Every structure is written in C-alpha cells, then in structure tokens.
C-alpha cells in the first residue's frame, strides 16, 4: 500500500519541519511543547506503519529510496531498512515521543529544548536508515550537536565540562571512523573502477580485500563504534555525560546514542570487513567481558542512583558486543534484541531517576529510603525497571541475555562463567539499591509532608514502557521475527553457523 510514498524520507522530514516550527514558537512555551509532541507523534505513527508494511521474510533492504547527491564524489542519498534497522527506527521514534512527554515541565528555553530533541531524532533516524557511508557519517555527526546543547544548557552543575567532554570524545572517535570509511571508499573504487560511497556497492567487494587492509580498517571503524557504545576502556565520557544531562537527554543518550555504536558494528564493520573482524574477534570478546564485569562492579560502588544506571549501561552494552563477537546467528540476533531491550529498560531507569531527583531533591542512595510508603507508583515503576534490567524472566532483558549467553556457551564454552558471574553482581546491586531506596526507614529527604507521587506526564511514558517491557518479554518473536531473517548475509560472511 505504500509503494509510492517515500516513507523513510518522511520519517526524516517531519522531525526537521517540526524542529523549525517548534524553534520559532519561542514566545509561547505551551505551543512549542504541543508542536514538538505532534511532530514526534507523526514519525511514531509512520514507523508503526512501516513495521506493519515491512515484509519480514523479504530479506534485503526495503522501502529503498535513492537520489544522486554529490555526483563528483559518488555520493548518493540512499535510505533503506532491513530487519536490524526496523526495530531501531521504531525504538527511536517511540523514545523521542515519550521523552518529549516526560519533559513537559521544562520551563527554561522550552522551544529550543524541544527543537533540539527533534533534531536529535532526525540524526538518529538518519543513522539507522542511511545506506551510503557519507550520508551515514553526516547523520552520525549531526547527533552530536543537539546532545551537546542538551547537556550544556539544561544539564546539572558540571554540565559545561560534561558537554564538551562528550563532544570531543565522540568526535575524535568519529573522525577515526571517517578515515576507515575513506580507505574503504578508495579501495572499493580501485576494484570497481568508479567512485561510490554506497554501502551495498562497497560491501559487495570489501569482504575480498587483502587481510592486512581489513585488519587495519576494521580497527579504525571498530574504534569509532566502541567509543560510542561505549566499551571499556573508552567509556569515561559516559558517566559524566549521563550524570549531568537532563533526564530526557539521558534517556535518549542511553536509549539511542549508545545503540548507534552497536548498530555501526553490525551494519558497517562486520559485513564490510569479515576477515578483519575474525582477527579482531578476541579483542572484541575481551572488551565485551571487561565492560560487562567492570560496569557491574562500578555499579556496586555508586552512591548516585543515576551514575549507577549509567554504569549499568556499560555492562549491558557489553552483552550486545559479546553477542556480536560470537559470530553466530543466535548471538548476533540476541545482541540486536538486547539493543532494543536495553533501549526500553534504560529509558525507564533514567526516567525514574529523574522523578526521584525532582521530587526529593536528591539522587543520593543513602539519603533516600522508604520511597514505597510515600511514592507507591514511582516505587513500582522503579521495581519494574530494576527487575527488567537484572534479567528477570518474563521481561524483555531476560530473552536477550539468555540468547547471548546460549550463543556464548556454544561458541566459547566455559568462558560463559565470566558474564554469568556478572549477572549475579547485577542482581546484587539492583536489589541492594532497591532495598536502600524503596524500602527501609524514611529518611529526612523522603519524610516530608507534601511529597508528590509521579505526575501524569511522568507516569504515562513509564507505564507505556513498562507495558512494552513485559509484552516483548512474553512475546520476543514480535521483534525477533524481524531480526533473524536479516542476518543471513553477515553470518555467512563471518563463516559462522
């Protein structure tokens, strides 16, 4: 039914138009909020339409659009989605929509804030849909600017340090990735005889490049993506950025920006340079395991609720990389599923941090206690988030982790013990944190007369996300059926099973 509608371009167009209109509504904060809400709702609807219309068994890229953009350099504006990007596109439109609702109480420069959220959506969607390396890179970099301002203008006390650190770190990584892309571009041109940045054009020939070339270029690309994910030891920008970012900024940072790194590995690095990937496999595994363990152990030590959630992201993104590094269909599929699952769960976690901070004025775990008595709804959402994140069966996180662990055991045997132990640590820090904040005696921050529970604009996104966490936990096939058929090519290139 959608043969003639460029649905992917529309997905980019509406946030763009929305950003401009919202920005111009500077005099009227209420209208700015409404406009942002509408212009983030339209992409959500479009992405739902796309979900329905996507042919799961069709394989390849669907809804493709392509126009020549810069002929002199062989750059084309090509968009397309496959089973890996479809869940990510849905996740992006959903999280931005919910984050805008959640930010309903933003009073400071409302129009700019909302416009930046929409620009961010534009960039993230572009990354997930671009099929031209050059266009991919442009969207990749566009994402940095709104996030820089979101942290820098609406962030916490150390916001200007955190914002610039985030900007520089990820920009350096992107530039190294760009070098890798240049190398691919020229090497492919010398084989093809014409210049093109097209992903399909380059990826058709690049798996057959010399091994030495593949090893170096894979390293450059992997570095760019690993910083974004972020993997130990390139993670240091993340705790700072998260702690200082406004709540909705953290939600999108953890929910979407980290996914860009993982998406880059599965979309670009692995299929383009499988031989190089084979050489790097053990480094990937080591980094993944270190991130899983390091993130979990750091969580135990945190007193700040938000910082704990930030470190848990490092641990959970490590699981994604571990899944990819198995080079098996199950592992990669579960890794992609974990990207999706982590997006939903971490959004709940950061929102609840925001709620607690907003109502009690602190996120310091020792100063909180007995929230359940005063804020039963908030405490419930917090429990749902924590339990989902520690991998309780029946929730979305469990499916992903179970899949990755099964694949890890198949591929590497008893190496599985390391991530399994860290799951125990994860359970420990979440339950411990729960004990100290939700239960126990009331502290003086919590025990005040008029401590409100969640408001409507906080409860609504939390409820939607909690519902989805359970729904996709019960019926993982809803997402898996998109992902698995799309992995055939990359798995066969990697020589896996």
């Amino acid at each position, binding site marked *: 039914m959608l043969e003639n509608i460029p649905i992917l371009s529309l997905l980019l167009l509406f946030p763009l138009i929305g950003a401009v209109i919202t920005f111009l509504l500077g005099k009227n904060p209420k209208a700015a909020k409404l406009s942002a809400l509408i212009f983030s709702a339209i992409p959500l609807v479009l992405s739902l339409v796309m979900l329905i219309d996507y042919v799961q068994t069709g394989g390849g890229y669907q809804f493709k659009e392509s126009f020549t953009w810069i002929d002199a350099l062989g750059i084309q504006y090509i968009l397309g989605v496959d089973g890996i990007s479809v869940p990510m596109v849905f996740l992006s439109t959903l999280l931005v929509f919910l984050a805008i609702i959640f930010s309903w109480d933003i009073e400071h420069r409302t129009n700019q804030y909302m416009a930046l959220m929409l620009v961010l959506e534009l960039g993230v969607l572009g990354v997930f849909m671009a099929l031209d390396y050059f266009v991919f890179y442009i969207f990749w970099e566009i994402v940095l600017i709104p996030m820089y301002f979101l942290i820098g203008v609406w962030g916490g006390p150390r916001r200007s340090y955190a914002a610039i650190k985030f900007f*520089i770190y990820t920009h350096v990584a992107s530039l190294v990735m760009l070098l890798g892309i240049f190398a691919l571009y*020229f090497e492919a041109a010398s084989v093809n005889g014409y210049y093109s940045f097209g992903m399909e054009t380059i990826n058709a020939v690049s798996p057959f490049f010399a091994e030495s070339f593949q090893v170096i270029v894979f390293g450059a690309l992997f570095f760019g993506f690993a910083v974004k994910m972020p993997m130990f030891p390139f993670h240091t920008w993340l705790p700072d950025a998260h702690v200082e970012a406004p709540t909705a900024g953290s939600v999108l940072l953890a929910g979407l920006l980290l996914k860009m790194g993982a998406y880059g590995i599965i979309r670009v690095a692995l299929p383009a340079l499988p031989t190089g990937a084979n050489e790097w496999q053990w480094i990937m595994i080591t980094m993944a395991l270190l991130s899983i363990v390091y993130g979990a152990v750091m969580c135990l030590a945190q007193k700040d609720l938000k910082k704990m959630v930030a470190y848990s992201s490092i641990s959970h993104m490590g699981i994604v990389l571990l899944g990819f590094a198995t080079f098996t269909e199950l592992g990669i599929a579960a890794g992609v599923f974990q990207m999706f699952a982590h997006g939903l769960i971490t959004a709940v976690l950061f929102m609840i941090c925001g709620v607690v901070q907003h109502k009690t004025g602190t996120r310091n775990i020792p100063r909180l206690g007995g929230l359940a008595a005063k804020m039963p709804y908030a405490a419930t959402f917090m429990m749902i988030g924590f339990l989902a994140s520690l991998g309780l069966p029946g929730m979305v996180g469990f499916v992903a982790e179970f899949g990755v662990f099964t694949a890890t055991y198949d591929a590497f045997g008893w190496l599985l013990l390391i991530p399994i132990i860290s799951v125990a640590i994860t359970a420990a820090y979440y339950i411990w944190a729960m004990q100290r904040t939700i239960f126990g005696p009331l502290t003086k921050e919590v025990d005040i007369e008029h401590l409100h529970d969640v408001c409507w604009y906080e409860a609504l996104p939390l409820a939607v996300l909690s519902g989805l966490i359970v729904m996709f936990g019960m019926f993982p096939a809803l997402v898996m059926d998109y992902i698995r058929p799309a992995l055939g090519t990359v798995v066969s290139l990697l020589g896996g099973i």
Partner: protein
Amino acid sequence: MDYSAIYPEIILALFAIVIPAVGMVMKDSKFLAAVSLAGIGLSMLAVLMHFYEGFGPAVFDNGLLVLDAFSGLFMMIFLAVAFVVILASGRFIEGEKHAPEYYCLILLATVGMMLVAASTDLFVLFVGIEVTSVSSYALVAFRKKDIKGTEAAVKYFIFGGLSSAFTLFGISLIYGITGTTSFEGIGAAVGTLDEFQEIIWLALVMVIVGFGFKVAMVPFHAWAPDVYDGAPSTITAMLAAGSKKMGFVAMFKFFLIGMIAIKADWDIVIAIVAILTMTVGNLAALNQTSIKRMLAYSSIAQAGYILIALPVATEFALTGGIFHIMTHAFMKGGAFIIVATLAVAAVGEKIADYKGLAKRSNFMAFSMTILLFSLAGIPPLAGFASKVVLFSSPIQGSVAGTEWLVWLAVAGIINSAISLYYYARVVKYMYVDELEENAPVERLKIPRSMAAAVAICVIATIGIGLFPDYFIQLCRDAAQALFA
C-alpha cells in the same frame, strides 16, 4: 593582444583610482563603499561574462596573464571576499578620516591578488604579490592612533619585506638556472637539468621561505597572530580570507607547474611543514583568550590543511585544496566580520566578552556557531565537504612508494579533532554560560549592512555544505586547467 583577459583587473583598477577623486567631494563612508561594491560587481560580471560566452582561456601579452578556469575561480573568490569586507566596512569605518584611501587600497589589494591568480610568469606573480602586500601594510595601519594597529603594521611590513627579498632572490636563482621566468618554461627546463641540483635546492629553499611567510607557514608564522590581532577586524578578514590565499595560489603555480618534475625533492619537506603548521596552529589556539588571536591561530592550522594538496600533487588533491580555500574564505572571513560587527556594537574582543551572546544577539551567536562548526568540519557544513575532499586525497594518492602520504590524512584528522575544542569553547560561552546575575541583558544594535555581510558568509557556508556538487566541479575544472 587580447585585452579581454584582463578586463576584470582593469575595471577594478579604474575604480580604485576613481574612488579617491570621488572622495574629494563625497566623504561619506557608506557612499564610497557603495561605489566600491559597484566596481567589484562589474569586475565579477566581467569574469562571468567571459565564461558565459563560452570563451576558452584568454591569454594576454604572449602568456603573461591568462584568464582560464583556474584564475577565473580564484578571481571570483577574491572578489567575493572583497565584496563582503567592503559591505561590512561601510559602517565599520564610518567617521574615519581616510575612508577614500581605505577603499582604494582594498580594491588595489584585490587587483594584486587577481594578478597573481592570472599570472603565468614568476615576475608578474611577484608584482601581483607586491601590489597586494604594499596595500595591506597601509591598511593594517589604517587607524594610525591605534598603538596595537601601528605596531602590527610595522611588524607586518618588516616580515613582508623580508619575505619579498627571499622570494626575489629565489626567483633570480631560478632565472639563472633555467633562463626563463614562465612557469611552463621553468617546468620544462627543470625536468631536463640535473647538474645544477644544489642551486635548485637553494632556490627552492628561498622560495619556500618567501611564500612561507605569506601563507603563515610554520616556522614563519609568528607575525600572523600579532598582525591579525592588531589590524582593524575587517582588514583581518581580508588578510585571512584573501591575501593569505593569494600565497597559496602562488605556491600551487610554482610547485605544481614549475617544480613538478623534481617533486621527489620537495614533497616530504612540504609534508612535514604542513603537519607542523596544522599542529602548531591548533595547539596554540587552544588557550587563547582573544577571539582574534584564536581565529588567527586557527587560520594557521587551516593553512596547514591546505598545504596537504602540494605533496600529494594529484588533480584530486588540488581540487581539495582549492575547495578548502573557497570554503575557508567564507568561514574565516565571516567569523572576522562578526568580530568587527560586535566591536561596532561595543562588545569586546576577548572570548569571555562573548558570554551569553545568544541572549544579546541571537543572529550573531547563531552565525558564529555555524561558521565555527564549519571550521571544525562538522557536517553538513561547507568546511566538512572541503575537508572530506582534502583529507581523502592523500589516501587516494598513497600508491606504492608514497604510502607515507596517508599520515597527512591522519594528521589532518587528529588536528580537526583538537580544533573542535577551541571552537566549541566559543559556542559554549555564547550559549551555555549564563551572564552574571546583575549584568545588563540588552539586545545589541547590529548595523544592517554588516549583518548582511555576515549573512552572505553563513548562507554560503550552509549552501556549499548542502550542495557541494557544483562547487567541487568548479574546483576540479580549475585544477584541470592548472595541470593542463
């Protein structure tokens, strides 16, 4: 003789001569600016007409000057720079005593740059450089009561004179060796010589030092921050966006036509100097407190990027070099004009003075943000497009024997990453940092003509960034014309 090759220069020179005469009757700066703008417009029209009518390269006087795709493109760049500078100057120098001389000198400097672009002969090139240089010495000292400005002018004059002496010595040696001063003749002669190697080296060193001063190449860059800081900001815009680029045109012609046969003897030297220039420029820019000095060091760094085109020496690399000169002219010119505009609106020239600028003038803060992000190479702005072509060229050019060229791309990319810090810092001051509690937050009065000049630069930066195809094609035609 085919005078059509030099119509653009003739028109502009005529206007330069007429303006002081007009100034006898009408001293109003805005009126004189309008006259100058008309002259620039006509000169641009002459360049465009030449290509619109489909003429091939026009040659003047047995090939001393030529109007082809290369020189035509650079003339348009230089004229565009002069256009925005003069557009902004109408208000900037309002009420100053010597307005007619000011416009006359800017136009003459532009004529000099155009001569350099059109020259096919070392001596004509040298004359062009001198015309521009002498005019700019006077322009830097335009506010003769301003101590910083006059000091800068003296420094500029001494360094400039020294650089001319070096260049001239080098040229004389080359004439002695090859018996000719035309680039093509030199190129042909150098290709067949081998017994004069040592003297060629001496000549090369002399010319590199001479041109190196002009483009503020490390280690001959020390004058640039002082002069850029001391000169009136509109003149700084012209120096950074125009006359410095003239030095690159001279280098392109000298090395890529005249000395291409012995490329193996100089390419590694220039490559090392390029990496040094970008690194020193960026590192020094990191902790500047004056916005003009910061931009001056950033100019040095950008010169380092452009130098990449020389050792790679492919058509693609030259395309990138020319493209980056084009985009840099708008980015850096625009940034200095913003500094000038804000100075008129009584904002200081310290970076700290830009605190909270977004609240005081949204347009200026937004424009500065776009230009700075473009300088840092953030897509989809013009600076990103030109850096892509420029930085990817060494990777393309690194074939067997010259694999080391890849390091130029690596250095460029690392440097771009460093540079983001000081560009983003200004943006942070403008948008993120709040003003002190009791500081007055009144909106600035921005002169309309200056805002227009800034707008032209911003629109060009965004436009070239979004639709680079046509401009890359222009630069490629220019590169082809030079190599032909």
